[in-house]
C-alpha cells in the first residue's frame, strides 16, 4: 500500500511539473509549507484530486471490487463475482496498456499442496472469465498463494469465507 501511494505521488508531481512548464504565467500563490524544490514559487497548485488513470488507485476506484470469493473447495465464478469481474474487464478495456495479476487464495482448512493447486485453479477461473469478456489472456497472469496469505485471521467460517478469494492487482 505504501508503495502504491508513493508512486501516485511521484506521478502527480511529474504531471504538475509538466503543467508548470506549459503555463508559467498563471500562477496561484504558493501554498504555505510547500517544500518543492527547483521550481520554487513558480509551482502550480496540485491537479484536481483523483487517481491517475491506469493506476492501481484508479482501478480500485473504478471497479466494484478487486476481490471475488469462493465456496469451500470450489472455484465457481458466481453471479456476484461475474459482476465484479465485468467491472474489471471494463477498466481493462479502457486501459489497454495495462496488465493484471490474479492472486488465488484459500482458507486454512486445507492441506498445503492442495491449497496451492486450488488457489491456482481459482485464479485461473477468474482469468478465464475475464478472457471470456474479451480481455486478452496475455494481459492476465496468475499466482497462487494457497493458504499462505490470509487476510482474516480467525479460525471460523466468517474468516475462512473472506480468505477464499481471488484478488486482481494491476501491474504497475
Amino acid at each position, binding site marked *: 500500500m505504501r508503495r502504491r501511494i508513493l508512486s501516485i505521488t511521484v506521478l502527480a508531481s511529474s504531471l504538475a511539473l509538466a503543467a508548470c512548464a506549459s503555463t508559467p504565467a498563471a500562477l496561484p500563490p504558493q501554498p504555505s509549507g510547500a517544500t518543492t524544490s527547483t521550481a520554487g514559487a513558480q509551482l502550480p497548485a496540485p491537479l484536481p484530486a483523483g487517481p491517475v488513470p491506469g493506476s492501481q488507485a484508479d482501478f480500485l476506484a473504478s471497479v466494484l471490487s478487486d476481490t471475488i470469493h469462493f465456496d469451500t473447495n470450489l472455484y465457481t465464478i458466481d453471479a456476484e463475482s461475474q459482476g465484479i469481474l465485468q467491472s474489471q474487464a471494463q477498466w481493462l478495456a479502457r486501459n489497454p496498456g495495462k496488465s493484471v495479476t490474479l492472486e488465488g487464495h484459500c482458507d486454512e482448512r486445507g*492441506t*498445503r*499442496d492442495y491449497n*496451492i*493447486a*486450488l488457489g491456482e485453479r481459482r485464479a485461473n477461473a477468474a482469468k478465464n472469465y475475464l478472457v471470456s469478456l474479451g480481455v486478452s489472456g496475455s494481459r492476465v497472469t*496468475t499466482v497462487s498463494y494457497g493458504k*499462505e496469505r*490470509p487476510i482474516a*485471521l480467525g479460525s471460523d467460517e466468517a474468516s475462512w469465507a473472506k480468505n477464499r478469494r481471488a484478488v486482481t492487482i494491476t501491474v504497475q
Partner: protein
Amino acid sequence: MKTCKLVLLLAAALPALALSVVSVQAQQQLLPGSNAKPAEPGKPAEDTVLTGSVTDESEWQDLGVAIPGFSTDRPVSTAAEGGSTDVLGKNLARVVFNDLKNNGLFKPTGPDQLPGIAYAEVAAPAFQGWRARNAEMLVQGFVKAADDGRLTVGCYLYDVALGQELARQGYVVRPDEWRRAAHKCADMVYSRLSGESPFFDSKIAYIAETGPKDHRRKQLAIMDSDGANHRFITNGQATALTPRYSPDYSRIAYLSYLNGNPRIYVYDIGTGQQHLVTQAKGPTFAPRWSPDGKYILYSMAIAGNTDIYRVPASGGESVRLTNTTGINVGGSYSPDGSKIVFESDRSGSQQVYVMNADGTNQQRISFFGARAATPEWSPRGDQIAFTYLGGNFRIAVMNPQGGGLRFLTDSWQDEAPSWSPNGRIIQFFRTERGSGRTAIWQVDLTGRNERKLKTPVDASDPAWGPVLP
C-alpha cells in the same frame, strides 16, 4: 536368534561405516573385551524382539535401561562438546538417554541419575549393583581421543538379569560429529531390543515459522533427528515450503516464492547453490524424491489443472504421469520404486490413489466417506500414512489396498505425515486453531506415544531423511 541378530547387525553396518566411522569389524579389535558371557547361540529371542509393523509395546514401557556416563581411559581435551573426554562421556550418554526416552519403547535412566563407572567396568559390568537398581538392560560406553583429535566411542549393551553382553559397536568420529556416535549407539540398542531398523542417526528438513498469521516468515531449516545441529538454510525473504531431503542428504528439494512465483528449487547443501527443478511456465510444487534419488516427482498447474510429473534429478525431460481434469498432486514412491501413491480430486473430492511408477493403472484406494490427502508410503511398504480430512484433520494410516484404516492423532489440524527411516514413527505438523501457530509432532504407529519436537521457533512441513551411512 540373539547371536544371529547381532551378527547381522554388525554385518549390515560394515560397508556403510566407511567414511566417518571406521568399520565395526576393525573397530572391534579396539574394544576392550567384555567378561560377560556371550549370548548362547541358537537360543530363540522372541521374548526380546518385536515383530510385525504394529505390535503391543506396553510390555516394553517398563523395560528399564540404565545408561551411565561413558567412561574414558584418561581425560583428554577435545573439540567436542564438553571440552574434555570425561565430560564428553557424560554428554554422549545423555544423547543416548534422550533418544531412547523419546520413542516410547523404554524407560531409560540417564547419566544424571546414575553413578559413573570406571573405565575397566565398561567391558566388565558390575551386574550385581545394576540388579540392585532394577535395571534390566545396561548401556555402557567409553570415549577416547586420538592424537589427531578423532574420537573412538565404544558402545556395549548388556542384559543385566542374564549377565550377558547382547551387542557392541565402535565408532570413530571427528569431534564435531560426536553426537552421531551417540545416535549410532542408541540405534544399536534400539535395534537389538526392538527388532526394528535404526533411525536416530538421521536428519530432518522443515520450515521454520515466525511472525503473525498474516505475515508469516517461512524459512527452510535442517536439524538432527533430536533437534540438535539446527541450521537455517534460507533467510526468509522469500516464503519457503515443503522441503524434502534427497536420500543421500546432499540436496533438498523445496518450494520457494523467490522471484514472486512458486517454483521447486533443488538446493545443494555442499555448495549452497540452488537451481530450478525444471524450466516451466506454470507453478511447480509438492516435490518428492524417488527412493534411489534419481528422480523427483513434482506437481505443476497449467491453466488451473494440476498434474504430477517426473523429472530426472540431474535434469532433463519431464514425463507427465497423470492426465485427468482436476488436481493431481503430491506422490510418494513405494520403497521398491514400482508404485506411486498420490492425491487427486478427480472424483470431486481429495482422495488417495495408487498408480504404477510409469503412470499406468491409476486406482482410487480411499473410501472413507471423508477426504484423504498427502499420502506417504512407509519405508517398510506395508502402510500408507495420510491426512484424514473429516471434521478435524487427523494423521491416519491404511494399507496399500486402502483397508485397515487407523487414526493415530486427533487434534484440530494435524497435517502432512512423513515417515521415520525405519517406518515406526510418523512426523507431522500441528496447527493451533486461531493463532495459526505450528509445531512438529511425532507419533508412533500405535498412536499412543505422541510428542512435540523442540524447535527454536514454530515449525511445519517436516521431512525425515534416511539413516546416515
